[in-house]
């Protein structure tokens, strides 16, 4: 509404954020946990003068740098790109609140990057204690990045006592979800790193002693990580806003994913305990790949849930999913959604000057337009009010199939009372006349009732 809407056919623009975010977190958590792994294990190998282990760690560091410094860093920038494109109002709000949080994270990133390159390129050129110290600098800098970013994403789920009027950075940063999510993500970083290490070492280490050593040593952070995930997860659950609780209970898919994430985490914990910890010999490349796949599935589920439970908000009680500030709804209902939009008003004024009265869109005149124009403006409303979460006729959460079989009046009633029909939907933010023309459009994309269905008994009895 404040910005032009980016129409991504079939998928919806915010789904691009989800795709890039999930791919990114699978690497960024490894970037954090891997820092601790390399610092601790390099120190251990130096202390025991274990040349074979140091050689392995050098190889692992190459894999680590190539994955995290290139793919991890660029997909991190990719998240910036996509949130600005698909959620500009929420991004603007977050940046106005957390610019110095991100600036601090950038400082951590500078330290991280310098340490990573020195640690990698000066392998064997620095004294062992100094080399290990550089590894620790990397690890803590990366963890500070995790803390800051997690606090910001946690804010989106529950800003706590923060208000846009006061815009207190510290209140926003220390939100109720901050600690539980930091604990869970720290655990996730440790666990996921061990799974990467298992997979990498199962492929590249031939010597049995070394394999056993790597797997045994990596199982402790994995077990600690699993415990932290569960502890953080319980905290996350406990501090959820009431509406997020309700979303969890109401949506079957989220319910299922919630069960899945706990089940997968516990399964990984058990397998790590029975496998690498108790019986390191079990860890074949196949077993390691399965463990990594289970871990990735748990992570992806967790990210999906984290995004879903915020509905209908992008920032809880501040920005709705469809890029409207919560405080704007009443005015939009009074003046009109098309009139209130920074991009919809000039569009309507240029295309349909006949609906303008004294420089404003006259809602009543919208109903006087020919049916094709009403449908077209209904589509404009759909783009700006609905397309954040719904594709049109086909695609992600498409509205067409969901309206199948519904009569026009029922669709109109749903549009006018969106938040009543589904409590996790944003409220209708337009005039009654705009609801009419949006309904015209929705009816135009509604597929016909499937042939052969007899909802009220036999075909003969149906009027």
């Amino acid at each position, binding site marked *: 509404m404040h910005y032009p809407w980016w*129409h991504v056919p079939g998928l919806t623009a915010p789904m691009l954020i989800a795709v890039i975010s999930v791919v990114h977190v699978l690497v960024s958590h490894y970037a954090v946990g891997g820092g601790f792994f390399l610092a601790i294990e390099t120190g251990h190998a130096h202390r025991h003068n274990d040349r074979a282990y140091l050689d392995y760690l050098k190889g692992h560091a190459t894999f680590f740098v190539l994955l995290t410094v290139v793919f991890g860093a660029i997909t991190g920038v990719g998240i910036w790109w996509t949130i600005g*494109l698909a959620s500009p109002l929420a991004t603007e709000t977050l940046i106005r609140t957390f*610019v110095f949080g991100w600036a*601090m994270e950038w*400082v951590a*990133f500078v330290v991280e990057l310098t340490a990573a390159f020195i640690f990698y390129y000066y392998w064997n050129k620095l004294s062992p204690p100094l080399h290990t110290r550089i590894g620790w600098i990397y690890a803590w800098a990366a963890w500070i990045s995790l803390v800051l970013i997690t606090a910001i994403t946690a804010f989106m789920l529950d800003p706590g006592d923060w208000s846009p009027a006061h815009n207190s950075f510290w209140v926003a940063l220390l939100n109720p979800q901050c600690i539980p999510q930091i604990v869970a993500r720290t655990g996730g970083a440790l666990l996921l790193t061990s799974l990467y290490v298992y997979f990498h070492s199962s492929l590249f280490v031939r010597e049995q002693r070394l394999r056993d050593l790597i797997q045994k040593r990596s199982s402790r952070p994995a077990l600690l990580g699993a415990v932290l995930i569960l502890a953080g997860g319980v905290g996350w659950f406990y501090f959820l806003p009431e509406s997020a609780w309700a979303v969890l209970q109401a949506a079957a898919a989220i319910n299922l994913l919630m069960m899945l994430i706990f089940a997968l985490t516990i399964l990984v914990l058990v397998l790590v305990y029975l496998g690498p910890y108790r019986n390191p010999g079990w860890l074949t490349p196949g077993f390691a790949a399965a463990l990594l796949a289970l871990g990735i599935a748990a992570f992806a589920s967790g990210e999906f849930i984290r995004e879903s439970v915020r509905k209908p908000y992008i920032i809880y009680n501040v920005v709705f999913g469809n890029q409207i*500030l919560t405080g704007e709804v009443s005015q939009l209902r009074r003046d009109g959604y098309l009139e209130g939009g920074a991009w919809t008003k000039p*569009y309507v004024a240029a295309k349909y000057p006949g609906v303008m009265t004294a420089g404003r869109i006259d809602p009543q005149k919208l109903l006087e337009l020919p049916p094709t124009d009403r449908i077209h403006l209904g589509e404009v409303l759909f783009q700006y009010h609905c397309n954040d979460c719904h594709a049109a006729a086909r695609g992600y959460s498409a509205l067409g199939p969901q309206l199948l079989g519904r009569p026009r009046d029922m669709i109109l009633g749903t549009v006018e009372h969106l938040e009543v029909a589904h409590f996790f939907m944003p409220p209708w933010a337009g005039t009654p006349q705009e609801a009419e023309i949006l309904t015209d459009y929705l009816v135009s994309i509604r597929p016909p009732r499937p042939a052969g269905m007899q909802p009220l008994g036999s075909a003969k009895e149906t009027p």
Partner: protein
Amino acid sequence: MDPQLFFRLHDAAGVPAPFWFVELFKVLGFTLHMVPMNLFYAGTLVAMLLGLAHAPQGRRFSARLMSQTPVIVALGVNFGIVPLLFMQVAYNKAFYPATILMAWFWMGVIALLIPAYYGIYVYAFGLRGKTPLAGWRRGVGWLSAILFVAIGFVFANALSLMTRVGQWPQLLEDHGSAGAALGTALNTSDPTFWPRWLLMFGLALGTTAVWMLVDAAWLAGKESDDYRCWAKQFATRLYVLSFAWTAAAGTWYVFGTWRQDVFKSMFSWPALPLTGLTAAAPGLLLAFLVWRRKEPLLDRRQTAWLGLAQFGVLAVNAISRQVVQNLELGPYLNVATQPTAVQWSPLLAFLALLVVGLGVVAWMVLQVVKAERGIRPS
């Protein structure tokens, strides 16, 4: 469509930093970003071309720069975060619409950067071996160099489109669906776009030339004097090319494409000295290089000053660009008068952390320097 309407809604919260602070970090960040970015934007292309050279020194420089490029790209990406962050703080109303109108191309930066960056590693790892570089690795190197130029093309599009507000309605009309953007627009019809893109490439050639001198004096201790002499001569010629290129593109940009009001402002007080300095700065550096052209080598002190001078060239260019950007946006958005709600304690916390962070970086670099010199590090 009336473009003024795009700017009429209030932001959710005030700008959390003073105007001068936003501008300072935006310009400083952009200048810092330009140094490494110039090296992978034009530098990789120069290096790939020199990789084909008959002169062994040319191939040597090619290998040197391509080996350094993985770190250079990382720094470029990292420093790019700062201007991007502060641009979104105060220029959100111009930046988001411009990038949304060309969303798929803007997303393309990420899609192009990942293979370009991996390609650089593939090439650099190939240089570590004792055998000649495999043909496929050369191919990957060329691909990376071309992708970097393509990324520059997209950036020039986005940043020029940011200020071309009057054209937004037409682009939305041509590349839209029911009032929403399809993200397929480009700003190539903007007369300022092409000279801007070329201007940055010219500056990048100059930075590459200066880097060649700095590298030869400071980092190429194991190279022969013959190499260093060649580097000095080649860098001088490259800087001449950069100067000619920048002068041509800059003249086209300023005299051929600037809006009248922008032109008038930039050529009158108080912006006039800045405009003059921006135009003259590369010439001063060129004059020094021409003056010392007979000398076979430049010493470390001279190259350090040259490095700083090129940083200055980029900095005045960045300041001028910022002033021009504000003038171009002026009819729609006055960034300086936006409501502010300054977050002083986070601002100070950031500055404190920046000092600590730079201290840690300096300490680490010092340890590396000691290690390089063979001194047992502490």
